[in-house]
């Protein structure tokens, strides 16, 4: 078989798929030119390029051509295979693409094999640090890189490390915070499962830098596969002498073990996490003293997020300046996001800091599902806020996101379209925080509960004007007086929606209307007899049998039985279901 050039074909309009016709035509033209044997034309499902007409990727030479027409095929084939003419004008380079540093090995190597990790520069950073660098030099390199904590707050990693390093107490600990609890976030799990050795290496390097003797992985028990793979990675590292006494012949000795969290959201907060590892109930301590000064068993402890630790080996390998060249002035490097919600391609992505939210949603994730209009983007989970449509050109960095009233958070990014209610969404997050509040401090325990009661009232159509003002007051109290970040940030989703979607709150309170139909207490479904074609589709699909009647007399919705799920509204082809 002679060497073939392989083309992937794809029609990238979101509305209809005409790729099959294009492929038939493509092969016909190739046959006419007598070159059908030297090519293979394959229909691709997705090339990550959208709204660019027909796209052809020359897989053999790794070149992408976009915006082609059916009439261009002959010209294209002649140019690429017969050397006649040129089709350079169709060449396309995706301007916005991912940059994988933390995720570089995820999906590439076998996570359960230390040898594969080592074949991908694994443990090189450790060898370099232990033999050529002093702990101070490692911290210096981290400082140059400008890496900031990826757990959400964005505290400079090097600073945390040097606090612990300079402590007079010689017993020190490192903790990996793998207690990921935000709804819709799974970055840490994917890294733990996809590249466990990178985090083990990061943990050893962190231990070396601060002079620790022991390190703990704190991973929630809901991640059994992540736990299994980390435990396996630790065992392999012990076997090869990368953990234990005198690592690689140096004076440095270090132990690692895994501790499981039982899934309390508050245990992701560092002081509560410390209590949990110590075997106590997971409740935050008051700060100061900070953990870097007095943490586990009152010894200096640094707690880093999974994503932060996964980046460390690369920084040591390539130098701090390398990372500092990526990103914005104050936010360096890349950030992993888990994109979920009403988006075409949900998934895990890693982008350089400074890319805008719009570029992420439209450029990488393929836009809003079903071509709907984007309403808002939520970042930071229950601690974050919403970013409305008119601000989606905000660049992703700690500062810019804080400016618009949200936070970077750990990396959940939820896309919302017009079917989402901006009262219902913060209500969900607030309920989550109230359920997860540990109850230690009053502002969070009582304030959260009272806020939830008010927003429930608004969603049920019983809100009054004064409620909005009252919520603001409670929120301010919580933000100022709560003991830990859970309480301090719990009002954020409510506050930011009240700021950007004030009109929607007004409708709920004054008009007792929910635009999206999500606040079910305010919604009533009925059938417009003039539009109804008596097709019975709603009758068949109603899950509770609330629609009855006959062809002659017409159908009606029994308001007592109706659970307001909206199924009839969605299935009706004639817009005969009225939602009020």
């Amino acid at each position, binding site marked *: *078989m002679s*060497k073939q050039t*392989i083309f*992937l074909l794809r029609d990238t309009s979101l509305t209809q798929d005409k*790729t099959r016709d294009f492929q038939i035509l493509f092969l016909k033209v190739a046959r006419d030119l007598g070159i059908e044997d030297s090519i*293979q034309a*394959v*229909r*691709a*499902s*997705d*090339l*990550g390029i959208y709204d660019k007409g027909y796209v052809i*990727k020359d*897989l*053999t030479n790794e070149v992408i051509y976009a915006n082609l027409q059916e009439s261009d095929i002959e010209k294209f084939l002649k140019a690429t295979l017969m050397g006649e003419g040129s089709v350079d004008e169709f060449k396309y380079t*995706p301007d916005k*693409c*991912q*940059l*994988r540093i933390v*995720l*570089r090995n*995820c*999906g*590439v*190597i*076998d*996570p*359960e094999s230390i040898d594969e990790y*080592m*074949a*991908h*520069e*694994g*443990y*090189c950073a*450790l*060898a370099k640090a*232990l*033999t050529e660098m002093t702990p101070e030099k490692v911290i210096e390199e981290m400082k140059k890189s400008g890496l900031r904590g990826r757990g959400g707050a964005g505290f400079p990693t090097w600073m945390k490390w040097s606090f612990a390093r300079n402590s007079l107490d010689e017993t020190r600990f490192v903790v990996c915070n793998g207690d990921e609890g935000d709804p819709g976030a799974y970055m840490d*799990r*994917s890294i733990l*499962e*996809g*590249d466990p050795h990178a985090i083990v290496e990061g943990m050893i390097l962190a231990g070396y830098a601060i002079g620790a003797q022991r390190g703990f992985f704190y991973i929630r028990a809901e*991640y059994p*596969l*992540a736990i299994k793979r980390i435990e396996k990675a630790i065992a392999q590292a012990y*076997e*090869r*002498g990368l953990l234990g006494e005198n690592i*690689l*012949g140096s004076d440095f000795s270090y132990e690692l073990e895994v501790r499981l969290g039982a899934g309390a959201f508050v245990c992701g907060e560092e002081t509560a996490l410390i209590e949990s590892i110590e075997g106590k109930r997971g409740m935050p301590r008051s700060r100061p003293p900070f953990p870097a000064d007095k943490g586990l068993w009152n010894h200096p402890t640094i707690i880093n997020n999974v994503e932060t630790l996964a980046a460390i080996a690369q920084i040591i390998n390539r130098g701090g300046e390398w990372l500092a060249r990526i990103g914005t002035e104050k936010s360096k490097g890349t950030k992993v996001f888990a994109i979920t919600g009403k988006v*075409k*391609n*949900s*998934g*895990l*992505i890693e982008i350089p800091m400074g890319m805008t939210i719009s570029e992420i949603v439209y450029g990488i994730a393929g836009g809003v599902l079903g071509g709907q209009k984007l309403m808002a983007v939520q970042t930071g989970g229950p601690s974050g806020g919403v970013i409305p449509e008119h601000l989606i050109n905000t660049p992703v960095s700690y500062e810019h996101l804080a400016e618009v009233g949200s936070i970077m958070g750990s990396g959940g990014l939820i896309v919302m379209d017009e079917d989402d209610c901006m009262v219902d969404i913060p209500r969900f997050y607030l309920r989550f925080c109230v359920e997860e509040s540990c109850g230690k401090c009053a502002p969070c325990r009582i304030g959260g509960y009272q806020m939830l009661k008010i927003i429930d009232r608004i969603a049920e159509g019983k809100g009054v004007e004064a409620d909005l003002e009252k919520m603001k007051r409670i929120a301010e109290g919580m933000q100022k007086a709560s003991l830990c970040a859970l309480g301090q940030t719990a009002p954020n989703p409510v506050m930011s929606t009240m700021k950007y979607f004030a009109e929607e709150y007004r409708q709920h309170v004054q008009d007792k209307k929910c635009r999206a139909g999500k606040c079910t207490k305010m919604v009533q479904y009925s059938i417009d007899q003039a539009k109804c074609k008596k097709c019975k589709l709603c009758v068949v699909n109603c899950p509770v049998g609330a629609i009855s009647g006959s062809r002659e007399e017409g159908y009606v919705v029994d308001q007592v039985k109706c659970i307001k799920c909206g199924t009839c509204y969605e299935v009706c082809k004639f817009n005969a279901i009225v939602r009020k």
Partner: protein
Amino acid sequence: MKTKKLTKEDILNACKATAPKGDYVKVGISTCGVAAGAQDTFNVFVEETKRLGIKIDITKCGCIGMCYAEPLVEVSAGGLPTVTYGKVDKNIAQEIIQEHLAHGRLVDDAIFEMPMNR
């Protein structure tokens, strides 16, 4: 079995050794992949290639990130460029074995790509 303790040289040599990798099939098996049926897909690859006598490395890997297209399978075989297949259920897995592995033809409507730098 006692494994030899590594030295610095071992680690540096391991990085440098870029042994040419033979043909392989890699199935993304993280929690997300498993939830989408990746374990079944993996089993089909192992059993079918054995039944047909196709010799190929079948390994597991982590999550590549295209969650909407799980289970994901990366295939590099028969001198063809490496491609990633998405939404690989048992049927598509069969098709990949029959078409790609046995006959060197890529499978239509199953390839997913996303532009990225590493």
